[in-house]
């Protein structure tokens, strides 16, 4: 009996086992998935919690609800991966051996990587990348009377690259609703030269920030937080002061990846960007945010990537060459406040462009423009996530990005 071991039951890991189980003979293949917690979070929903749009119940479900029958679920902390011996050691002493390993342990917010972050956390510093963080921020905003709100990206890459923009747009909308927008100064500090990494989208999104009265501080790479001055301090000694700081913390892959000597400088696993095979071990793959792919760390990427991975894996175990090449396809709704949203669709080679999606010329979604339909797409996506995507069912969208419907 062959053993497939998947580490991490988030978006990528869960979707992968659910897609593979019906296609691998149960008499020949045992599939095991491991996670340290019982709860699956709908992470895109964290963004809405600070503004009271979603609550805790909207974003969590038991992981076991989404793991198809015929798959073993192991809950526990992973101590060490030993790829030379094809086994994984658990913190409780269990040893799981495998023929093939799929690493899907994600990427995680690491406030400890920025000096001063933890000292001010929960007081003048808040974040929305964890459920407790998002809930504490909701509580803070409820009674906040205004001042300088600074949104800051501490390091690239990070999970959901549009989230800090969305947070800023929503904050502008929310403070208007509360009648205190005139008492709030909104600042967006980023280590990049622009507000987004791709030029056409950067122009559109930069324009939106300007329209909403947000001051952008570019080329600002944070070294530390000075909690006495309430200031972000950059490596080149510039300061941005704040009354309330909402940073995107440094994101890093799971610590076990670093401990096992399998990661890069941020504990992401180096893989072939077309087929996700580890560059160091020929029976190890890394999918989703855990991999070092040069594309967005996002659920949509994980989804498209898993489709490609599934087909390739089924060929690979038969000794056939992997045919499918992942193109880096990402597709993100960007909530922009006031019941509107934008949509971007792009890959390794093609930047986000304007146009209609998914049907060329028709839509219903409009790329790179604010429309109510895009907002409803975003809100409906939560249902799609729980009911279609995680369960490994087909979405009516091809994994490969299409140029049709896009305008240069």
């Amino acid at each position: 009996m062959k053993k497939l071991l998947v580490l991490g039951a988030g978006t990528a890991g869960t979707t992968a086992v659910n897609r593979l189980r019906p296609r691998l003979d149960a008499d020949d293949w045992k599939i095991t998935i491991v996670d340290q917690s019982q709860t699956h979070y709908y992470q895109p929903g964290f963004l809405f919690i600070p503004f009271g749009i979603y609550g805790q119940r909207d974003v969590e479900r038991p992981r076991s609800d989404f793991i198809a029958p015929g798959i073993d679920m192991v809950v526990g902390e992973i101590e060490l991966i030993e790829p030379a011996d094809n086994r994984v050691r658990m913190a409780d002493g269990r040893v799981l051996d495998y023929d093939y390993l799929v690493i899907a342990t994600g990427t995680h917010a690491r406030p400890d990587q920025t000096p001063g972050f933890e000292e001010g956390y929960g007081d003048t510093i808040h974040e929305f990348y964890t459920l407790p963080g998002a809930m504490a921020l909701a509580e803070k905003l409820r009674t906040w009377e205004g001042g300088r709100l600074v949104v800051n990206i501490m390091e690239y890459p990070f999970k959901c690259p549009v989230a800090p923009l969305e947070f800023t747009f929503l904050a502008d909308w929310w403070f208007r609703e509360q009648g205190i927008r005139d008492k709030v100064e909104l600042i967006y500090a980023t280590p990049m030269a622009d507000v987004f990494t791709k030029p056409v989208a950067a122009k559109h999104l930069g324009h939106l920030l300007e329209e909403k009265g947000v001051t952008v501080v570019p080329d600002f790479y944070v070294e530390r937080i000075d909690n006495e001055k309430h200031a972000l301090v950059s490596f080149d000694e510039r300061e941005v002061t704040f009354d309330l700081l909402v940073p995107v913390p440094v994101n890093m892959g799971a610590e076990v990846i670093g401990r096992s000597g399998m990661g890069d400088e941020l504990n992401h696993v180096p893989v072939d960007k077309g087929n996700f095979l580890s560059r160091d071990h020929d029976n190890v793959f890394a999918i989703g945010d855990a991999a070092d792919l040069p594309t967005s760390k996002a659920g949509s990427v994980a989804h498209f990537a898993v489709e490609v991975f599934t087909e390739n894996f089924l060929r690979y175990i038969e000794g056939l060459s992997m045919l499918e090449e992942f193109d880096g396809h990402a597709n993100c709704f960007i909530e922009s406040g006031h019941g509107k949203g934008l949509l971007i669709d792009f890959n390794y080679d093609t930047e986000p462009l304007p146009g209609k999606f998914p049907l060329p010329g028709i839509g219903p979604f409009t790329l790179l423009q604010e429309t109510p339909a895009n907002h409803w797409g975003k809100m409906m996506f939560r249902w799609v996530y729980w009911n279609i995507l995680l369960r490994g069912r087909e979405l009516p969208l091809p994994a490969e990005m299409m140029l049709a419907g896009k305008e240069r």
Partner: protein
Amino acid sequence: MANQVIAGHEVAVDDEGFMTDPSQWSEEIATVLAKNIAIDTLTDDHWKVIKWLREDFAVEGETATLRRVSTLGGVGTKEMYTLFPKKPAKKMSYVAGLPKPKGCV
């Protein structure tokens, strides 16, 4: 894409003047590129970063980020800002004859 004569050698560069073929690079060219961005003398500390960047690129096929250099290359981020002021990631790769690091989305 165009060709430019740098230190007497014809090299391929992109719109922003970044070299597009790392094999055309030489230390002589680096010295000229550095002067273009107001770094008059390349010190041993500059060379340490430049050489590490080129070695890492040869293996990885991508230009290292500041974090990668500070974690694996042994030169601190602060020092890189001193050596290549204001925009170290861009300036380092420019002098090393490598593409500028991709801001991962």
